[in-house]
């Protein structure tokens, strides 16, 4: 008992880093509190309907105002899931290629290239997306699929403008791949050499060896996915240029929609002209906290299940 007590106090290093970690946690709590406090007004007016309806009636008469951000929540999750589905195979195969296969002279260049991609301002992706990616996807991906497979709900919407969940998802997938890839790559690089030797010594082919080694770094892959999802759902400028910005809930990949982040970016400038819009946007932001929490819990669940195995 006495040992533990004095031990705590003797360890001044521990004490000295405490304020900094407390600061970070405190900022997070404070942010959550601010979002909550600012959303109360809209919760009192509409209750949970802010999250369950799809309406956006901005009126200078406060009586008529009504905000429901369901379409934007749907769009945020939809486009981010597409992004992760695209980014995951890309980033895993890129990581494996860079570490195992790339000629050592090129390796560093590949890594530098992805680091630059990760650091590019998002507006650059956005403009490229609006002028190059969207017309390309529309003419060479969406219309061919729509013309032949429009009986499947996923492809049932005529891609008139090309601005759609798919465009947003593909652009986001490209944007978040460098992040997911660098986490997976570093973890893959760190696998002790004796494990590699062991795998090959039992006669595994290169494909089998890679499969076994990847399962060894599953926590890093899950972390990469969570980070990628978080980046994707929070992305603002680039998405709002390609998603279409219309309040729409449609199962089709080719339908235009909205996301929470682009909704806030679009509407915040003039929001305080209206009585309730600022509060509605804070509530919309708050929903992203919940989505983030849910994704993190899911990640933890996947990892814990692995430990039990």
């Amino acid at each position, binding site marked *: 008992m006495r040992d533990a007590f004095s031990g705590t106090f*003797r360890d001044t290093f521990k004490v*000295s880093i405490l304020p900094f970690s407390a600061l970070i946690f405190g900022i997070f709590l404070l942010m959550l509190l601010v979002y909550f406090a600012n959303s109360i007004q809209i919760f009192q007016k509409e209750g949970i309907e802010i999250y369950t309806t799809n309406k956006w009636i901005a009126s200078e008469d406060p009586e008529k105002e009504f905000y429901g951000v369901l379409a934007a929540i749907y769009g945020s999750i939809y486009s981010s899931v597409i992004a992760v589905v695209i980014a995951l195979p890309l980033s895993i195969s890129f990581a494996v290629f860079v570490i195992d296969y790339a000629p050592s002279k090129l390796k560093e260049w590949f890594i530098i290239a992805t680091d630059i991609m990760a650091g590019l301002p998002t507006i650059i992706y956005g403009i490229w997306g*609006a002028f190059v990616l969207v017309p390309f996807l529309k003419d060479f991906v969406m219309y061919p699929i729509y013309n032949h497979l429009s009986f499947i709900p996923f492809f049932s919407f005529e891609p*008139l403008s090309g601005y759609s969940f798919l465009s947003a998802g593909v652009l986001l997938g490209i944007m978040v791949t460098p992040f997911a890839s660098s986490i997976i790559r570093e973890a893959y690089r760190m696998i002790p050499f004796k494990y590699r030797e062991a795998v090959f010594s039992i006669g595994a082919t290169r494909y089998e060896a890679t499969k076994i080694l990847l399962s060894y770094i599953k926590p890093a892959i899950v972390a990469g996915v969570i980070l990628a999802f978080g980046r994707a759902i929070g992305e603002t400028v680039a998405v709002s240029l390609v998603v279409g*910005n*219309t309040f729409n809930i449609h199962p089709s990949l080719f339908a235009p929609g909205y996301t929470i982040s682009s909704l806030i970016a*679009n*509407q915040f400038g003039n929001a305080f002209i209206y009585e309730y819009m600022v509060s509605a946007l804070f509530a919309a932001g708050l929903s992203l906290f919940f989505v983030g929490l849910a994704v993190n819990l899911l990640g933890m669940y996947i990892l814990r299940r692995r430990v039990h195995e």
Partner: protein
Amino acid sequence: MSWKNWENLAVMGVILVILFSGCIQNSEKPTSLQTPKATVQETVTIIGSGATFPQPQIEKWIDVYSKVKPNVKIEYTGKGSGGGQNDFKQGLVDFACSDPPLKESLWRELEKKGEPLQFPMIIGAVVVAYNIPGIDNLKLDGKTLADIFMGEIEYWDDVKIRELNPDANLPHEKIIVVHRSDSSGTTKIFTTYLGLVSDEWKEKVGAGKTVEWPVDKLGRGDGGKGNPGVVAALKTTKYSVCYTELAYVYKENLKMVALKNKAGNYVIASPQTIKAAASEVSINVPPPTKGYKEDMKAFLNAEGENSYPIVAFSHMLIWKNYEDKARENAIKEFAKWILTFGQKDENIVKGYVGLPPELSSKLIREMGL
């Protein structure tokens, strides 16, 4: 060992303090730098914020004015009409610019703090631009335009459009409607106009800075952020139509729809047709001391053979009295300069139109400048 940790902590703390104090010093610097610069007259800095629509014009005025009056420094931040109104109310800026006139409720709040003055400074037009390859002279009337933006007309070769354009070879393609996704004075002007010319629009959609676009629910709508976003979407999307401001159409070389005015003529927005409309409606501009009485509707769908139907004034807001008299003089001189020399053709940016001379002299008289 333990002391070293405390030392490290102390060093970190000192660094933090230096960083923060650096910020504070930076923000104080300008005042200390300006004092020795003052020569005969002291330098006055005027700060304004507000609408982005007249921003290029205001920047041009500031540029020219700073050559005439080197001792007056003017800074303008474009953040939207609403942002400017709020800054002005909070006393953060000396003047503000707003496209829509102030609402009465805000005006009353301002009157508790002083005497606000609102005057139009420049005229703009909202135009309908389109992207149909091979079609160059599209003509529409207000009712048909409203039907298109409501989504009731689905194809470009609809009978209603064909009737107005008998010679055009309109394609059987779906119409894609591009609108603003952010809240905007441009949307307010455009939707107000559509409400004037179509009862159905007024009932179903209404007017406002953001509206619920019925065409979005049909999947043929697309929202772009700001005028640049709308124009980018229009350029990359064939068979689309949008509304934007005249200056952007000139800049991006877009095709404009000729709109049917009240007299029944089809007119394209141009300095001549906008001026024609402005001189018809400038009688409806209220005195600057009663700015809230201005009604946007009174300027739309103007009479006159050659009047373009969707014009709007962009306004400036100042106080009648400022605590600092040197500042008050500088602001009023600038306002007067805008209404006189600022309205000359060489000081007007392409895409904007100056006020009719009789209106600007009336405003100067009423404000006692």
